[in-house]
């Protein structure tokens, strides 16, 4: 394997008595498509929070293209090309779907300080609509985001992180709350765009069908540790993973 683009070394984080991240060491190569599974409370979200600088680890290192990320803020992680989506969508609830996209794109273009340019320029509008079209979000362009059904919010949340064209994208349960029909369409869109750009994708997922279909590599989290790491099929066949993650009790 070539040198990893993103690497965690001995990463630990506790919340009181809970060890949410227990000396995790793991690396990811550029362009990898990695699934992350594990029961609720296993520390998957915390892992994403720590990598993106939202939560400061108690100890350990995060290296991105060789650079130490510990101590940096989510903003500096984003500036370096690491973006994420959220388990619970983080959106601008009082703005429209279109405005949410326009804001994300204008930040991407580096206009966040601009006071005189218009946000809703023709070119910017076209770009935003194109982004939303890709995620089939155009039928509700003018809808205030607070009024959107949960599944649509989830998709918009992912669309916003896409606007940044990141090199590493972390998706926190992208398909939870999304209807069964839409799930695969959504993942296809994600994979389709990312495959062309060599983006590294880590996605947390509870739906094993989705995992089996899309993850090239799979990490299984339990109690803040990665208990299995390898090709999806192998990990899903692992005895402990079957027991602790999938909840299958093998007759033996």
């Amino acid at each position, binding site marked *: 394997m070539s040198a990893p683009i993103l690497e965690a070394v001995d990463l630990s984080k506790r919340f009181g008595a809970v060890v949410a991240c227990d000396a995790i060491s793991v690396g990811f190569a550029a362009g990898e498509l990695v699934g992350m599974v594990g029961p609720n409370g296993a520390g998957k979200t915390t892992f994403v*929070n720590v990598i993106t600088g939202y939560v400061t680890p108690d100890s350990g290192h995060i290296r991105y293209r060789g650079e130490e990320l510990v101590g940096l803020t989510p903003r500096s992680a984003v500036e370096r090309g690491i973006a994420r989506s959220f388990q619970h969508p*983080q959106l601008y609830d009082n703005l429209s779907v279109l405005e949410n996209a326009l804001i994300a794109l204008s930040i991407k273009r580096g206009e966040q300080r601009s006071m005189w340019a218009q946000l809703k320029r023709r070119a910017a509008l076209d770009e935003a609509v194109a982004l939303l079209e890709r995620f089939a979000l155009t039928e509700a362009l003018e809808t205030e985001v607070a009024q959107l059904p949960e599944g649509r919010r989830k998709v918009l949340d992912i669309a916003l992180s896409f606007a940044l064209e990141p090199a590493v994208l972390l998706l926190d349960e992208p398909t939870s709350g999304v209807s069964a029909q839409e799930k695969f369409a959504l993942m296809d869109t994600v994979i389709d765009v990312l495959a062309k750009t060599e983006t590294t994708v880590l996605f947390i997922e509870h739906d094993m069908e989705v995992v089996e279909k899309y993850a090239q590599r799979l990490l299984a989290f339990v109690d803040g540790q990665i208990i299995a790491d390898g090709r999806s099929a192998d990990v899903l066949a692992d005895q402990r993973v079957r027991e602790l993650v999938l909840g299958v009790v093998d007759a033996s």
Partner: protein
Amino acid sequence: MQTTSAILIDGLVYASWIFLVSVGLTLIFGVLRILNLAHGSLYAIGAYMGAWLVVRFFQPGMPLWLSIVLLLFGALLVGAVMGPLVERLLLRRTYGRDEVLQLLVTYALFLILGDLTKLIWGVNPYYAYLPYSLMGNVTIGKIPYPRYDGVLIVAAIVVGLGLWAIVNRTRFGKFMVAVIRDREISTTLGINVPLVCTAAFTIGTTLAAIGGALTAPTISVVPGIDVTVIVLSFAVVVIGGLGSLEGAALGSIIVGLARASAVHLFPDLDLVAIYLVMAVVLIFKPQGLFGRVEAKRI
């Protein structure tokens, strides 16, 4: 040397006075999550009520303790009536809404209560100095200090210990702490949160009224005293950390000493001195001395 002891004693008196008011403010914030801008108005109403009772019923020759009883009775009356009234009729409608919106609701209440006070008691000052002057002075290191100031200090200590006992020794106190910590969980635990809110607001309001009533004999009770006290109380709770009772105690001492130092060393700049202290505290402890930061879980 003499200035030092004067600063310490004056500081203690100021601290006691402002503690009585600000501990109520912080208690209300802790439980209801509402910063009550009208807290000063309730202080003022307590002062008017106390002053009015003393002027009306207390005469020289009566036992001194009677005047204190009158003052406290007035304060309890104000708290018992205004507390439930305001909480039930007004604040309850705003629970769960934006914090700042709630702040503006209490600002509106401040405006209303200000005029209401003037309508009831007029705009001429009330002087209820009899208890104060009758108690006379005590001389400490050649400087005479009014004995009445001791009443404020005692009241602050009693209130502080009383609250401590309620919080740590009673079921109601445990409920209150639970609500302060986490409202949702308290509800699921079966705590009657609305009732705890009403009770906490009433206690806080009563404390403001007590502060006002006990201060009445030392000042001329005029329109505008609500503003002075609320502005100082904010400094106290911001320094101590919003919602923290210990913070209110420590904040009061800091504000009291800062004010006394300013009064003795740079007269007329007391407010500036207090806010300067506040700014310094905030630079190093952005959430106040006992304030907690809770990162949002995502």
